[in-house]
């Protein structure tokens, strides 16, 4: 019995299986972050002090300790890097803050942000104390309200009045939490002053008032400056000075409010993330993860000497510290530790109580997330510390000698701190832990499907377009059952032995068995396909020697380059400089093509006859292969290869020399484009031609360049379009230029003052209309050629029109100094098709890979 599958059904089945595999893999790769129950549950009572051993004595301190600070002001400066405050820049531009750090009543730390160093996850980390996993970034792209337990929610529930000014991400994350707020959008990155003025303008009024407990300010200007001009730009200094003045104003106002009787206030200065050397953020370079964290309050001791070594804390530590400072319960998902110096002015009993609360919360979180929590080192340490804490309370309540009590208390403190550190690190590790088993199952499915597809491609492309699935052969069915059994056994062993969470294990047994059966079925399919191929290949005996000699240098290069690139992605150093890989590869490709062309032109005539014959045979076989296999691909790659087979012999005269020169022209083009944009990590700061062009003094040069490029684009693209789309193309390119002029990138020759800069929406719409028009005409032509006549010229016109519409669209979207990239791209494509691919008769696979290489390189040419 054999099941015959149409190729459509086969493809659909493969797609489904592939989707399943990818989903499983991703689920394993992005483990869910450590989570407690949703906060909708009743608020857990805070833990009481540990009970002292022995009967009789009872501690009756069960309530939450009172707040330490009356008012708390959090000043979050987006992208504030640690050296902006503690380094030479801080000394130069933030004199007041530096003075407070060095001589005032403050504690300063370097807070380490966990990647992704993006604003929204960092705000979440600061306010919940938890580490959002990567999946949070994927799921919450539009940042809906934060559902898990957090500091703001706790503060609101405790009746604190919160005022917020700044980035409106907060307003989205905590809707209806603020009694007063003013959100600024960070949409216009080039806005350096307005975003911050919108925050500062409320400051005087709010600082006079008494009707708030928590004030949060989020300044975005520094981040915008970083994105546009980098961390070393001259704009950073004035911005830091502005921030220094804001801090000075707040600090002085807070100090003036403090009476003798009331509690002191606290000013917290922090950054959500830093910035890299190029001014961006998101990754894990040192500049991006290290942010300053400053606590300023009159409750602290005055610092005597200058700072020596700054202590490194985690960004997540802020949430629990603030919770304690405000007299709130610590958020359930918090993985951070209390920063002890901040509460250091309190009595030993209170300090111990705070640490106990923190430890209790962490161990509860551990219990909820790890089945084997009792074996955890941190949990054991915490239990020991809790016990000695109980003993300490017993001594305390008995009214023992204060000296002994202090020393013993310090010992307990140390035990607690150790336990907290271990607990946090084991909780944080769970976020970063991959679910290996799910990943492996997913990978196996993906690989099997790919292999099956690969094996069935020749059959699916053949005229019958059918794929036979053998079901009955006893060998395969036996194999199937055996594999199922073995996989199930593996599953049981893995799932019972693994102590960590495993998504695949948590699925129902039925589903798991289904997946196992799928894997075994795919395996059997692959084996049968392999068997059949072997069977077929044995029947007509082939000469392996003939096969191996047909590999030209270009083939070897294409194969080795592709494999090498894939391998290079395993090393982060290579990923950072991936553009170099591509530039290197296309250069080598051009040289190999040059050699191939030379051989084609010189050797075929001069060398001895035998060689010529063998080469010719090779070419013929390649030509045949390309003729029979790749009819569709040719059309899709929009190369004019269709007639290649017929006109190959007529390479002569000037064509020959252009053909020989074309690799060199391509090489020179690529070298020119390379100096247009510096990209990557190491050399990104180097001056490049693009920066020179985009600076405001060189607007006229940029205008000339853009105009020439647009003209060239027109010349290169319009050749094979119909008249209507030619005109539309010309108008569209004019529209592109006027759009760029409208938003102030380029100027018209008659326009000398660029005062009236509009948003250019009208012009952009104008171009979009033409893009749509051209694409529509092209599609119409294509459909017509399909339905009415099998006219190939109509079809090619249609394809070219769709193509030119897309080119017009990209001309609109490219930044004006990158328009030469588009021109060279079109030029190189034309040259490659006409002078290289056609005379050398490459097949579709080779051309596709070359297209891909050049596409990658051109992507990096325009990235800066």
């Amino acid at each position: 019995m054999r099941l015959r599958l149409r190729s459509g059904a086969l493809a659909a089945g493969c797609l489904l299986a592939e989707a399943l595999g990818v989903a499983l893999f991703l689920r394993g790769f992005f483990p869910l972050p450590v989570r407690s129950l949703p906060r909708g549950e009743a608020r857990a009572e805070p833990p009481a002090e540990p009970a002292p051993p022995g009967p009789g004595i009872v501690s009756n301190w069960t309530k939450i300790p009172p707040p330490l600070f009356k008012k708390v002001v959090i000043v979050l400066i987006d992208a504030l890097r640690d050296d902006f405050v503690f380094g030479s820049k801080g000394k130069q531009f933030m004199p007041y803050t530096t003075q407070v750090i060095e001589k005032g009543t403050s504690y300063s730390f370097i807070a380490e942000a966990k990647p992704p160093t993006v604003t929204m996850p960092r705000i979440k980390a600061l306010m919940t104390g938890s580490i959002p996993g990567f999946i949070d970034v994927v799921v919450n792209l539009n940042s809906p309200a934060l559902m898990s337990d957090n500091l703001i929610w706790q503060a609101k529930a405790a009746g604190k009045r919160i005022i917020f000014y700044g980035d409106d991400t907060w307003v989205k994350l905590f809707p209806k939490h603020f009694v007063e707020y003013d959100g600024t959008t960070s949409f216009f990155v080039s806005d350096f002053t307005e975003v911050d003025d919108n925050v500062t303008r409320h400051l005087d009024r709010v600082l006079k008032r008494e009707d708030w407990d928590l004030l949060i300010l989020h300044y975005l200007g520094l981040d915008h400056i970083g994105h546009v001009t980098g961390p070393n730009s001259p704009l950073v200094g004035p911005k830091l000075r502005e921030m220094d003045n804001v801090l000075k104003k707040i600090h002085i106002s807070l100090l003036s409010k403090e009476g003798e009787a009331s509690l002191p206030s606290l000013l917290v200065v922090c950054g959500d993330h830093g910035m890299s050397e190029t001014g961006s953020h998101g990754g894990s370079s040192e500049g991006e993860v290290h942010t300053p964290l400053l606590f300023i309050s009159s409750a602290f001791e005055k610092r005597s000497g200058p700072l020596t070594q700054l202590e490194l804390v985690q960004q997540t530590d802020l949430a629990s510290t603030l919770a304690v400072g405000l007299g709130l319960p610590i958020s359930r998902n918090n993985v951070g530790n209390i920063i002890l110096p901040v509460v250091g002015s309190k009595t030993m009993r209170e300090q111990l109580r705070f640490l106990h609360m923190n430890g209790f919360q962490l161990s509860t979180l551990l219990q909820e997330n790890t089945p084997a929590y009792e074996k955890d080192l941190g949990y054991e340490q915490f239990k020991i510390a809790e016990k000695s804490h109980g003993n300490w309370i017993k001594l305390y309540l008995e009214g023992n000698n204060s000296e002994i009590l202090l020393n013993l208390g310090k010992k307990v403190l140390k035990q607690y701190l150790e336990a907290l550190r271990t607990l946090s690190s084991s909780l944080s590790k769970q976020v970063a832990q991959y679910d290996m088993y799910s990943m492996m199952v997913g990978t196996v499915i993906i690989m099997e499907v790919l292999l099956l597809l690969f094996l069935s491609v020749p059959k699916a492309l053949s005229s019958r377009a059918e794929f036979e699935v053998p079901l009955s052969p006893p060998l395969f069915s036996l194999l199937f059952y055996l594999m199922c059994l073995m996989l199930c056994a593996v599953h049981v062993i893995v799932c019972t032995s693994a102590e960590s969470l495993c998504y695949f294990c948590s699925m129902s047994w039925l589903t798991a068995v289904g997946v196992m059966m799928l894997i075994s079925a795919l395996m059997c399919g692959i084996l049968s396909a392999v068997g059949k191929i072997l069977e077929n290949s044995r029947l007509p005996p082939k000469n392996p020697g003939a096969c191996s000699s047909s590999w030209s240098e270009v083939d070897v290069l294409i194969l080795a380059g592709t494999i090498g690139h894939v391998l290079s992605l395993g090393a982060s150093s290579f990923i950072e400089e991936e553009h170099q890989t591509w530039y290197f590869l296309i250069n080598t490709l051009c040289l190999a093509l040059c050699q191939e062309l030379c051989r084609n032109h010189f050797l075929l005539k001069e060398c001895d006859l035998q060689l010529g014959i063998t080469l010719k045979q090779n070419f013929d076989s390649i030509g045949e292969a390309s003729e029979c296999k790749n009819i569709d691909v040719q059309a899709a790659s929009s190369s004019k290869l269709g007639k290649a087979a017929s006109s190959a012999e007529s390479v002569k005269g000037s064509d020959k020399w252009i053909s020989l020169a074309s690799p060199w022209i391509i090489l020179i083009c690529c070298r020119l484009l390379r100096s247009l944009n510096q990209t990557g990590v190491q050399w990104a700061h180097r001056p490049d031609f693009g920066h020179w062009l985009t600076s405001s003094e060189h607007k006229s040069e940029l205008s000339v360049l853009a105009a020439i490029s647009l003209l060239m684009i027109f010349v290169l693209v319009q050749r094979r379009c119909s008249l209507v789309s030619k005109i539309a193309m010309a108008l569209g390119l004019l529209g592109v230029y006027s759009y760029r002029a409208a938003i102030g990138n380029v100027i018209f020759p008659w326009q000398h003052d660029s005062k009236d800069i509009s948003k250019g929406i009208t012009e952009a719409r104008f171009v979009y209309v033409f893009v749509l028009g051209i694409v529509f005409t092209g599609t119409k032509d294509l459909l017509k050629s399909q339905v009415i006549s099998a006219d190939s010229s109509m079809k090619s016109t249609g394809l070219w029109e769709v193509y030119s519409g897309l080119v017009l669209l990209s001309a609109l979207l490219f930044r004006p100094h990158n328009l030469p990239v588009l021109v060279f791209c079109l030029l190189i494509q034309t040259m490659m098709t006409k002078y290289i691919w056609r005379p050398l008769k490459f097949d579709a696979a080779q051309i596709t890979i070359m297209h891909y290489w050049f596409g990658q390189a051109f992507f990096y040419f325009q990235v800066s």
Partner: protein
Amino acid sequence: MREAELRKLLAANLLCAVSIVLTALVPALFLDGFSVLGTHLTWLCVCSVCVSVLNVTLCLILKPNPSSKRSSLSNKISRFLKCCIYFFMSCILFHAIIVLYGAPLIESVTETFLFSVLLSTFTTLQCLCLLGPNIQAWIRVFSRNGAMSIWENSLQITTMCSILGGWFGAFPIPLDWDRPWQVWPISCSLGATFGYMAGLIIAPLWIHWNRKQLTYKSR
């Protein structure tokens, strides 16, 4: 006959390889502060000069391609001048290719040019010694089955190996390892040198291994 020739080839190649090793060691006795990495440009000069002198001498002594006709002095001089011009042109060509690969155009021109001289020494000079300024012969040798003696086979192998070595040597340049040998053109020239030495050693072995299959048409 073949065996003797092969032994000659092996000796010549080993001599070349040893001389390259010596260029890295001997100048340190005369120049203080000399090291391959530290004073790389000096080493490049020393190495190119040594290899070229040795190659020319070997070529004169061993006479791998017996020139059939006695040529006059003026003929010889014109040949020599032609060789010089070819060598210089190949240096320029390598320089251009290296710049196309992304080497800076104006900065560090000396480094780039010396590297291209080294590459020419490893490749073009060998061809000039063996084949003379005869482009047709070059094309013949570097086409697929064009080698006509073990010398030409060895030439093919060493040329390919040194160029491949230089090519692979470019890989570590963009990486962020901050090693002293990642500075342009150290890794490339070292790669080319190692490639050349590997080629020198591989060539006799490969010819020995494949001596059954190698049939030279005109002999």
